[in-house]
């Protein structure tokens, strides 16, 4: 029913009270939001999915504040990012924060388990802003502009964060120091 509708049309229908339209938005953007949170939070997937659900519910209740309905994916990821930061600040995770990252992921062919652990450790050492930029731009292929909009950071900052984060991760995977 809502298959061919654009995000802007779905937002408009959701604002008019259509739960089906909002469900379609969830269906369309859940993968992006959850992938971002899995990489950013670095814990088990259950926590990332929990934060993702909180983000969608927050999005539903504040849909009227969305200025650009076509940019709903960036907007949702921005909400998810703030929720994830709150989660990191508030809890219980602390030093154990990144211990579970990638543990649930099967090691892809051509990648050694030690390299997976090295990447896990390198991600854990990245500052939160850098990790968020890396998750979006390197993990999901977002443009620097999209990531800047979603995270509320200046474009130049995003570019430098991505470059710095990429260099650190590649170094952890056996790349050169100035990768």
């Amino acid at each position, binding site marked *: 029913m809502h298959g061919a509708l654009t995000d802007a049309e779905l937002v408009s229908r959701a604002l008019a009270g259509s*739960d089906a339209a*909002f*469900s379609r938005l*969830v*269906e369309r953007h*859940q*993968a992006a939001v*959850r*992938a971002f949170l*899995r*990489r950013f939070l670095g814990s088990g997937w259950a926590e990332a*999915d929990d934060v*993702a*659900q*909180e983000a*969608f*519910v927050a999005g*539903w*209740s504040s849909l009227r504040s969305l200025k650009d309905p076509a940019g709903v994916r960036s907007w949702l990821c921005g909400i998810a990012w703030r929720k994830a930061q709150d989660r990191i600040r508030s809890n219980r995770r602390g030093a154990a924060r990144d211990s579970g990252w*990638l543990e*649930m*992921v*099967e*090691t*892809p*062919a*051509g*990648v050694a388990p030690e*390299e*997976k652990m090295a*990447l896990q450790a390198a991600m854990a050492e990245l500052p939160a802003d850098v990790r968020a930029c890396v998750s979006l731009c*390197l*993990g999901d292929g977002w443009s620097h502009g999209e990531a800047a909009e979603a995270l509320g950071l200046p474009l130049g900052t995003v570019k430098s964060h991505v470059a710095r984060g*990429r260099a650190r*991760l*590649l170094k952890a*995977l*056996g*790349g050169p120091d100035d*990768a």
Partner: protein
Amino acid sequence: MTPEQKLAALFAAEAPPRRDYAFEADVAERIARRRAWMTVAALVPWMVIAGIVLWALQSFLETLSLELATLIQPLALVVAGTVVAAGVGLWLTGVLQRRVTVAATPK
């Protein structure tokens, strides 16, 4: 495999599925719960107002209920009598009908 390819492969390995019905159902459930709470929260001020109004009208309503009771009492007696009479009438009709049916049945 270059470090670049390894990084891409590791990132790709943890991507969630394009469609996840369980996740979507969980979000829908949370939204329904949030909506229910919002409805309750929206009703609270009206309940408070209704309570205050009833409290303010308490003495008036007490007097009114006594007056109404006096007014309604004869009417209630008539209605109760009618209901009892109708019930008895229906019961007698049933009894008579059974007796007539038994008497008319050939042995």
